């Protein structure tokens, strides 16, 4: 299958020639359509910068990012790329520019020149998908933090993207709101949307199909969650913890009770423990 998003030797430098910081130092990555990818790494590892490059919000200093074959260096293709790879930023307050939920959702398609009747259809459908029916006229600024996060997703959905990139969108949510946002992502993923999520939260990572670990502007590790979390020593070096199920498995393994290093989710741990327990019983 052809790559949906392909990244080749991507470098990105912030600042001018005088004092510049190289946030990305040679990143190469292929993302296929319908993938669920988690990008993790310590603060300052370049994961947010990578996310912004993927959605065409930053242009590479050198190297190449292509979405459906179009390069993000090509100014004429940028609007199309940004509509295809929709980016949800961390602080919703700074991405809302109107004063009602429906205007906010309409803002993107309006910019794309979508005909009015079609905008109304998309707005209604996006608001429904994130479960905010009946709240069309509320002021975005006065929503709860969980609602703000879902509105930010709806605002992207109305542009009908093929991919959503979320930059630490769950970082400051309370656990309940985080759960509902994650459920929404899983639902969109099942419907065929490509999901790329930047996060610190390891349990969130286990929902992904592939993990990219960033460290100092480079990809340090990549693979399925089970493969990445099997490298716990390396992860500790990058300042990353294990999700609870993997941590428990590792602890038991150290005591000589092996359940398998590929355990990362709670369901998997429960399955193995039950098998062992019933096998013994």
């Amino acid at each position, binding site marked *: 299958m052809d790559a949906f998003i392909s990244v080749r030797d991507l470098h990105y430098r912030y600042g001018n020639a005088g004092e510049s910081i190289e946030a990305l130092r040679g990143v190469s990555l292929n993302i296929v359509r319908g993938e669920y990818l988690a990008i993790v790494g310590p603060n300052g590892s370049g994961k947010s910068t990578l996310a912004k490059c993927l959605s065409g919000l930053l242009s590479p200093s050198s190297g190449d990012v292509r979405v459906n074959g179009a390069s993000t260096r090509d100014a004429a293709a940028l609007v199309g790329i940004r509509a295809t790879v929709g980016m949800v930023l961390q602080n919703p307050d700074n991405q809302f520019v109107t004063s009602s939920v429906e205007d906010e959702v309409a803002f993107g398609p309006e910019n794309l020149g979508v005909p*009015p009747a079609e905008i109304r259809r998309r707005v209604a459908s996006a608001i429904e998908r994130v479960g905010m029916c009946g709240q069309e006229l509320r002021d975005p600024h006065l929503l709860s933090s969980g609602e703000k996060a879902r509105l930010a997703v709806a605002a992207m959905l109305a542009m009908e993207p093929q991919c959503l990139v979320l930059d630490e969108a769950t970082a400051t949510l309370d656990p309940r709101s985080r759960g509902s946002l994650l459920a929404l992502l899983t639902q969109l993923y099942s419907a065929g949307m490509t999901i790329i999520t930047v996060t610190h939260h390891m349990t969130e990572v286990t929902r992904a199909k592939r993990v990219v670990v960033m460290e100092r502007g480079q990809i340090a590790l990549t693979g399925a969650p089970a493969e990445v979390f099997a490298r716990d020593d390396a992860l500790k070096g990058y300042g990353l913890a294990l999700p609870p199920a993997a941590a428990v498995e590792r602890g038991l393994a150290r005591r000589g009770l092996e359940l398998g290093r590929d355990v990362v989710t709670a369901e998997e741990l429960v399955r193995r423990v039950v098998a062992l327990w019933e096998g013994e019983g």
Partner: protein
Amino acid sequence: MARAASLRNASLGRFWPGDSVVHTLDPRVKLCSLGLWTVAIVLASRWWVTAALFLLIAAAYRAARLPRGAAGAVLRPVLPVLAVLAVSQLLFGYQDPAMPGADIGVLEVGAADVSLGRVIGAAIAIVRLLSLVMLVGLLTATTSASALASGMERLLLPLNRIGLPGHELALTGAIALRFLPILGEELEAVQRAQLARDITGGPERPWQLARNARRTAALVVPLFADALQRVDEISTALLARCYQGGRGRTYMRELRLNAKDLISLAISVGLLVIVVVL
């Protein structure tokens, strides 16, 4: 802290959704009317015309069916300005010899001789300013930021023909209005953090200039840093939403002038004509 909390809910610029006649008017009509009424208020030379205009605006508030106290909330922030205006008008205001009561003394303050005429003059000046503030407050209270932006952009459309960014100007205005309460919240947080470290405490005393300047700087610096960061994030967000200025933009709500709009506009024009003739 109370001061910052009220800023958080800064009401000039706050939109109260509704379905009154005033709410449903075309934003372009409302903006044009704002212009026409403003000119009328400024030109009105007779006290009873000024008073009548004020009453008309009050009637418009009624028609808008805003929550109780919305008008008060609009006026509260400008009260100090009104007070200063009143005093200066009383003491140094232009005295029209033709004004009734110009020769009736009311009060003597030092060299200034306050006549009844001055009192009336000051009252007129205040009612004028009140009218202007309430007019703007009515517009923002009954018109959503995006309706304002789209109305403004279409009015500014001729600018695009001579190469000026009409839509960008309109959106900038709308965003500025939107972020007023958010900056208020930010100010509250900064104040909270600093009060916690400012153990000298106590009320602000006007004569402690150095200390007050330092306090103000301590508030403004983080607020400015925050505003800059927001500007950066908002511009990124606009890119992510594929914003490209007014070019090729469509609107969810199509603006079409209906009879109600045309009648309102006609009333506003008529009003200005009457005021000019009078």
